[in-house]
C-alpha cells in the first residue's frame, strides 16, 4: 500500500496530480482510491486529495500515515509533515516553501516547480513537474507509464500540451540516478 497526500493552493493542480496518479495506478493493474478535501475545508484556498494505491482491496480512502506527501505550499507542509511515516518522502515545491527546517527522519525532495514551469513557459504545469520528481523518487511505476498516464489524462479532456512533457522531464531529471 502506498498512501499519498497531494496538497497546495487551489489552482496549483494538486487534485489533478492525484487523479493522474490514480490513472497511472489502474493502468498498472492496481486498486486505487482518490478522495478530495472539499467544502469548508477548502475555504481559504487550500486543497488536498488522499490517494491510496494497493494490490489488495483498499479499506478507508482516507490517509492517516503518509508514504509520500506532495506539498505545493507552506500551509501544506505545516498541516501534513507530521503525518509522514518515518523514512517517508516529502516532495516540496521549493519555489514557494523556503528556508524551512524539515524532520530529519524523512526524505526530502525539493522541486522548484514554479520556476521550472515558468522556464518552459507552461505556468500551469507545476503539478506535472512535481510528478516527474515523484516518478523518479518513488520508482513506483516505470517512467513510460507516467508519461502515458499524463498524456492519456489530458487527452481524455481534449487537451494536448507538449510543454507538459518538458515539465515532467525536468522534474524527473532533478534527481540523480
Amino acid at each position, binding site marked *: 500500500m502506498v498512501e499519498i497526500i497531494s496538497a497546495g493552493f487551489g489552482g496549483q493542480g494538486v487534485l489533478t496530480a492525484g*487523479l493522474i496518479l*490514480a*490513472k497511472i495506478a*489502474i493502468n498498472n493493474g492496481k*486498486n*486505487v*482510491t*482518490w*478522495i*478530495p478535501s*472539499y*467544502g*469548508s475545508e477548502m475555504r481559504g484556498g487550500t486543497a488536498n486529495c488522499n490517494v491510496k494505491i494497493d494490490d489488495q*482491496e*483498499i*479499506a*478507508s*480512502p*482516507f490517509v*492517516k500515515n503518509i508514504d509520500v506527501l506532495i506539498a505545493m505550499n507552506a500551509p501544506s507542509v505545516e498541516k501534513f509533515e507530521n503525518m509522514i511515516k518515518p523514512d517517508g518522502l516529502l516532495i516540496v515545491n521549493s519555489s514557494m516553501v523556503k528556508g524551512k527546517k524539515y524532520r530529519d527522519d524523512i526524505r526530502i525532495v525539493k522541486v522548484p516547480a514554479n520556476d521550472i514551469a515558468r522556464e518552459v513557459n507552461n505556468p500551469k504545469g507545476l503539478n506535472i513537474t512535481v510528478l516527474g520528481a515523484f516518478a523518479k523518487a518513488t520508482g513506483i511505476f516505470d517512467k513510460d507509464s507516467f508519461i502515458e498516464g499524463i498524456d492519456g489524462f489530458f487527452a481524455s479532456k481534449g487537451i494536448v500540451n507538449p510543454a507538459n512533457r518538458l515539465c515532467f522531464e525536468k522534474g524527473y531529471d532533478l534527481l540523480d540516478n
Partner: protein
Amino acid sequence: MEYVLMKGNEALAEAAIRAGCRFFSGYPITPQSEILEYLSWRMDEVEGEFIQTESELAGINMLLGASAAGARVITSSSGPGFSLLQEGISYLVAADLPAVIVDVMRYGNGLGDIGQSQGDYWQLTRGGGHGDYRVIVLAPASVQENADLTYLAFDLSEKYRHPVLIASDAAIGQMVEKVVLPEMQEHDIDKFNWSIKGCKKGEEQRKITNLLYYMGNYDSFLIDKYKSMEGNEQRWESIYLEDAEVVLVSYGISSRVCKEAVKVARKQGIKLGLIRPITLWPFPIEAFKELSDKCKALMTVEMNILGQMVDDVVLAVNNAYPVYKYTTVKDVPETEIVIEKVKKIILDEEV
C-alpha cells in the same frame, strides 16, 4: 473488462442513464451535487429531462408525475434536503409508483456538516415519511456498487412498484475508484398498463392515487407486498461466519474498514467475521442463520453515535448473542480500534 476511473456520485449518475433513466428533478446540496452536475449535461446527450427545481419538494413531486407517466426516474439529496423528500416518498409508496431516490448521507442533525456519515439509517429503513411503509434500501460500499446497485434499483422499483433508496455517503460519493459500467439499456414508457397515457374509449380510467381509496383487498395486498420484498430481496456479503467468535455487522464505507479488520485480526489468530448488509431494508436476517455455535457476540460498526443498526441486529439474532457497537461521528471507523474492541469482547472485558 474495461475499467474507468470515476467519482462515486458520477458513477451512480451514469449507471442511472445506462439503466434507461431519462428523468431527473432535484436540488443542489453537498455532498451529492455532482449527481446533478453530471446529469445536467448527460441527460441532454441522451435526450432525457434534467430539471433543477425550486426546491426538493417540487423535485420529488415532479418525479412522481414523471414516474406515473411511465419513465424511469431518479432524484438525489442529502441531510436536510433528504428530509424534504420524505412526504413525496410517502406519496410514491401510497400510489404504488417506482422511483429511485439517493441519499448521499452527510453528518448530523439540522444543517449538520458535509462529511460522510451513516446517521440516516433509521430515517431510511423505518419509512421516514408519514404513514405505514418501508422501502427497499440498498447500501453501496464502493464506487462499483454505486453503479451496480443503482442499476439494480430501477429493476427492483419496477418489480414491486415501490420506491427504492440508495444509502450512499459523502465518502463513497466523493471517492474516485475504478469501475466497470453496466450495459446501456432502453426503457419503454409504454411498457406498463398502469402508467397514464390517455384514456381510450372503452378503456378503464387510470387513477394514480392512494391505493387505499379503490382497492378492496388493500390489507392483504400490503401484507403480501412487504412479505414478498422481505422474502426475496435480502442481500448481504458474509465472511468467515463458519468459525467466527465475534462477528462485525457493518455496511457502506464502515464495512470497508471492517473487512480490513477481519484480515488483520485473522493474521493475529483472532477469529473475526463480518456480515455486510447490502440491503438495509429488508434487513438480511437470513445472513444471521449462518452464525456458528462458536459465535460469542456481534458488534455493529457504524458512523452514527446512537448505533442505529443495533436494533436490527438484536432482532435478527433474537437475543441469542450480546450485540456491541463501535460508533463514530465524523471520522471513518479505524481498523485498530475495531480489533481492540474485539479483543475486549473475547476477554469479556467492558467494551
